[in-house]
């Protein structure tokens, strides 16, 4: 569905480099990474807002054009519209540009979310702004949903409802594609088909969920069961007194039978695989 080749984005103080990335059609791709890792930049690059210094970004094999954008629903981390405007201004705007706009569906969604169109945008809470964006995105019946941290600022109950809603949306038709970036990895655990891990402006991995589960495990133990050689086998280790917890990639290092092995959650994977800066390391010590 979306193809990035040899892409390099150079911004002030930040670089994003993607050698090759293929987002498949009809699946849910969860993009995880720390704040500032490049998730938003990636999304902006896909949407044609950020122009890369080099490389190609293709949608269905062609550069992003107007016809393709008609099929894309987007939800960003904020409502980027003049804050003094009333919410109903957004309906006018979207209705005039999307040929597949369904006005009654939009009304229904806003009502179910409890968003009042008479309010000014600045009067909406973070959660309301998100819901408004979702309503705007869904109301024109897109084939693809691109979301940049849509659940940030939502409480856990609302987040669960949100993920359930996305599930329903994906299940309703077979060819729908969802690209969803978040640092709240628990949202994706039971939901994503593919996981894209971005760290420090680079892709750490892009794997289907079965492979992620297959490869990454947490190993716990006491330091006396760990030899020097063993330590190098971990993707990342953490020490608490004489106890260690480490992440192992089973495809590169098999597990010994007498180790205590645990499921590595996406958060664990993110934690152990990402770079900890020197300043941060100092805080931990």
């Amino acid at each position, binding site marked *: 569905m979306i193809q990035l080749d040899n892409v390099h984005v150079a911004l002030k103080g930040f670089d994003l480099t993607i050698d090759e990335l293929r987002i498949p059609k009809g699946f849910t791709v969860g993009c995880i990474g720390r704040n500032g890792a490049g998730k938003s930049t990636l999304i902006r690059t896909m949407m044609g807002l950020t122009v890369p210094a080099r490389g190609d970004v293709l949608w269905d094999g062609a550069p992003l054009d107007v016809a393709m954008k008609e099929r894309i629903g987007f939800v960003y981390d904020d409502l980027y519209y003049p804050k003094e405007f009333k919410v109903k201004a957004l309906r006018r705007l979207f209705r005039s540009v999307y040929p597949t706009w369904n006005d009654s569906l939009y009304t229904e969604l806003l009502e179910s979310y409890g968003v009042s169109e008479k309010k000014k945008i600045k009067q909406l809470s973070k959660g309301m702004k998100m819901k408004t964006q979702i309503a705007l995105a869904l109301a024109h019946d897109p084939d693809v949903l691109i979301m940049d941290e849509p659940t940030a600022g939502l409480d856990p109950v609302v987040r669960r409802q949100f993920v359930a809603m996305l*599930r329903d949306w994906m299940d309703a038709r077979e060819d729908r594609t969802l690209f969803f970036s978040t640092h709240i990895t628990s949202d994706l655990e*039971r939901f*994503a088909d593919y996981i894209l891990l971005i760290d420090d402006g680079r892709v750490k991995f892009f794997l*289907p969920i*079965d492979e992620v*589960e297959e490869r990454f495990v947490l190993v716990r133990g006491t330091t006396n069961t760990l030899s020097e050689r063993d330590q190098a086998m971990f993707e990342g280790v953490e020490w608490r007194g004489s106890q260690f917890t480490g992440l192992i990639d089973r495809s590169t290092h098999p597990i010994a039978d007498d180790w205590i092995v645990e*499921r590595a959650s996406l958060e664990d994977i993110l934690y152990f695989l990402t770079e900890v800066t020197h300043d941060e390391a100092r805080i931990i010590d």
Partner: protein
Amino acid sequence: MDIFISHERPEPLYAQIVEQVKEQIARGVLEPDEQLPSIRNLAKQLEVSVITTKRAYEELENEGLIYSVHGRGSFIRAQANNAKTEWLRLEFEKKLEAVLQEGRLLGLTANDIRLLIDVYLEEEETK
């Protein structure tokens, strides 16, 4: 099909599905030529990714436990009876191994363990 998956256990979800299907076949819960839910439906039911259910079915097919008919779905392949008992026996051996390991960790010697087994077996016989 009743499958229970746990997000806490270290085994990948697809592996858990495979194990449970195997067990159900061995116990006769799933019968030959019985149709399995589609990968989409199973994914919905278990709230997992279709990638997981697809992988599970692929593994099962590779192991000769199910077969798929294009456009119709996946079905249980008839297993020779001894294949079923073979599997159950393997499961038993695995459990035995785990128990023995625990015994070793507790500090029991091979003799201690043999004595314990005899005690239990005798109890069984007198019942």
